[in-house]
């Protein structure tokens, strides 16, 4: 005889069933109570750098107490968890916040035993895939924003409801929830979210006769500014990135494509179906034409764009040889780091670049549409049959997720390069400290409402990391015209989403 998990039922299961029913009822009650733990206090319609600064530090939360309403603080159990924690290269503050979280969790839930593994970003997916095949996965895992869709599609993850963890849907960015919804089912909760912004070198702008304190307003301006910088100074204007098989490429090209009204599928729609291919629409073609103009006609971007990732743009930027580029919130810290390592005349140049570094909002399309890729991570619960030991301690899992995603910890655990997945985190004192100490954080943070997640499909990495760069390269090298390149990409995407597989 087997139970619902396909495992042999042991004696005493009737009693356990009663306990389980009682526990379920108790959990339902607590979850109803807990939905009101974080009343919505953030007005997304007012979102701007000034608004972000004005609300920071206005409210404090007690995660241990709030989560105690979801799972009693004296609950005894165990939970296993995999995530990408801080590693050697990360700043000390990331290590400190990570340690502080686990200390706080063990203080709040002294009877929950934790089995935690911090696994590098590059290894996490493969290790998780392998563990799932061997039914030895952890109960909870945190994956990068679209990392979970593959596992949701394959049936490895449990559907979740924010209310079960003491939250409501309003506690998260709509874009973030969209990124963790597959087949109309929520299969995880956002833990942290970030968007990129536009950076430029004010001195380069000034020397080229541009307003040094103003970012280009539109993508057409970017094309014009790039040409002006190149023609006047002989350096590259915009840091185009178009390497094949590289994730950096879609993160930098898709915002431009979306701004012009394009898309790979209908990911920009409020309720995307991911069935209609839009890579060959007028907006997508206009965006590709703009990239072609910069690379092949004006020659105002690096020739090496076809083999460049963002890492290859950092050196010319810090050397004052590149005018502008799309960058991560942590780019400023990276530039500071590069400047600190420079010596002699290079040091003076690098320091001047850091001094002249400016962050601004992403340019808009011709119709005023502003877009950026919605990044971050989500936390997921694995189905018991794939977990080491065959059981998931749901209460312990709830306690962990409630604490991790609480306003306070969601902010502190994303200290260096991201933002709280729980919107209420923007109200905390920790957020205020971050804004006070991390330059340009207010600007990069204010791009969040414009964030669009890549299509939530298991085939998304293939479309974004291979088909989109292929399309760019076909057009930029003149291997195809812009029209041909977009039509070719459209056919490839159609084949991929029809289940035909691409690349051969």
């Amino acid at each position, binding site marked *: 005889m087997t139970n619902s998990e396909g495992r042999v039922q042991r004696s005493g299961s009737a009693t356990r069933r009663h306990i389980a029913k009682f526990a379920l009822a108790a959990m339902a009650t607590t979850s109803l109570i807990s939905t009101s733990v974080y009343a919505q206090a953030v007005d997304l319609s007012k979102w701007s750098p000034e608004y972000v600064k004005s609300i920071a530090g206005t409210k404090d939360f007690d995660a241990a107490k709030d989560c105690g309403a979801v799972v009693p603080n004296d609950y005894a159990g165990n939970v296993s968890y995999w995530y990408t924690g801080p590693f050697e290269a990360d700043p000390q503050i990331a290590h400190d916040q990570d340690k502080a979280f686990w200390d706080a969790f063990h203080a709040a839930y002294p009877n929950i035993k934790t089995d935690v593994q911090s696994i590098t970003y590059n290894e996490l997916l493969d290790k998780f895939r392998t563990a799932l095949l061997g039914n030895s996965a952890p109960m909870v895992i945190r994956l990068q924003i679209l990392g979970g869709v593959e596992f949701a599609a394959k049936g490895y993850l449990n559907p979740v409801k924010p209310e079960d963890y003491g939250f409501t849907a309003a506690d998260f960015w709509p874009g973030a929830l969209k990124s963790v919804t597959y087949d109309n089912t929520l299969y995880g909760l956002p833990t942290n979210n970030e968007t990129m912004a536009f950076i430029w070198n004010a001195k380069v702008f000034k020397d080229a006769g541009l307003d040094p304190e103003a970012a280009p307003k539109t993508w057409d301006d970017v094309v014009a500014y790039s040409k002006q910088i190149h023609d006047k100074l002989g350096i590259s204007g915009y840091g185009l990135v178009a390497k*094949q*098989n590289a994730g950096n490429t879609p993160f930098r090209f898709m915002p431009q494509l979306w701004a012009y009204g394009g898309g790979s599928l209908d990911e920009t729609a409020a309720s995307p179906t991911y069935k209609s291919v839009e890579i060959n629409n007028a907006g997508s073609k206009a965006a590709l034409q703009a990239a072609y103009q910069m690379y092949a006609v004006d020659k105002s971007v690096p020739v090496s764009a076809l*083999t460049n990732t963002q890492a290859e743009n950092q050196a010319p930027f810090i050397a004052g*040889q590149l005018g502008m580029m799309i960058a991560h919130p942590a780019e400023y810290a990276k530039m500071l780091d590069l400047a600190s390592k420079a010596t002699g005349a290079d040091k003076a140049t690098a320091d001047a670049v850091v001094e002249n570094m400016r962050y601004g909002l992403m340019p808009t399309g011709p119709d005023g549409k502003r877009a950026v890729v919605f990044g971050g991570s989500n936390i997921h619960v694995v189905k018991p049959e794939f977990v080491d030991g065959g059981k998931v301690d749901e209460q312990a899992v709830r306690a962990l997720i409630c604490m991790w995603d609480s306003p306070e910890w969601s902010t502190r655990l994303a200290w260096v390069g991201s933002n709280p997945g729980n919107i209420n985190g923007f109200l905390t004192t920790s957020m205020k400290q971050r804004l006070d100490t991390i330059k340009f954080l207010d600007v990069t943070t204010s791009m969040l409402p414009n964030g669009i997640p890549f299509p939530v499909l298991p085939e998304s990495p293939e479309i974004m990391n291979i088909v989109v760069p292929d399309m760019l390269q076909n057009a930029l090298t003149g291997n195809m015209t812009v029209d041909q390149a977009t039509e070719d990409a459209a056919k490839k995407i159609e084949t991929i989403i029809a289940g035909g597989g691409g*690349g*051969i």
Partner: protein
Amino acid sequence: MYTSRFDYLYVAPALLVMLIVIAYPVYYTIELSFYKTPASLSLADKTFTGLDNYSTVLTSAIFWKVTWQTIIWTVLSTLFSFLLGLGAALALHRAFIGRALLRGLLLIPWVVSAVAASYVWKWLYHSDFGAIGALLNAVGLTKGPVNFIDNSTTSLYALIVVNVWKEFSFAMIMLMAGLQTVPESLLRAAQVDGASAWQRFWHVTMPQLQGVSTVTVLLLVVQNFNSFIIPFIMTGGGPVGSTQIWITHIYELAFLRQNWGVGAAYAVLLFLIMMVLGYFYVRALTRGDDKRAGA
């Protein structure tokens, strides 16, 4: 020849490990090659499609384009690595001051990590700030950025240069060892008979190097067929697929597109070619063994 049952016991642990780490993955890859594995399904839900994946691979235009690039990559890399290695081995075979130092220096490319070498060469070739382009500009051979790896016509050849630089030392070591076995008496006899330097090399040295040359070439061919790091790091297979070779294409299909079934079929084809090369390698290594055993 069978002598004792205990012999099997002695090799059993090694055999067991080989079964687990070699035989099973080979078996699983072959099995997977007969299944369709969409990204949206777990491997447990794969569907049997017979030889469809093989047909997909062999009838694809991209496959034949990549195959042609793989042949160019393998043949040119092997040829130039061997010739350069042979030249270096002949030069270092003669005694001169600083020979040991030069031998050590020439070994550097071989001992350097392929990943590190790829990044260094990527910057050397860099189309905007590369040292090679700057040098060519400085001596007046070119004007403006020199496009080595961002150009679909030159990228494969640019990568072959890197590959040859990386592996010619291997050929050099092998051939230096082979040169030690060339009898000095034969070379002297040829010299006494009035043979020129070229005639001594072609008629005395090269025939003596035939065995080691065959093994070296076979090892280089196998290595080049499987050479992944340089093209993947330097160009990611681009621009427009111009540096895609079999092994990088298999990786893309299996791991980046999660098209495991087709990737497995592709890998099986590569495996068959490797087996053929392996057969010739073993034959070259064991040439004369039977004769010696008979004697």
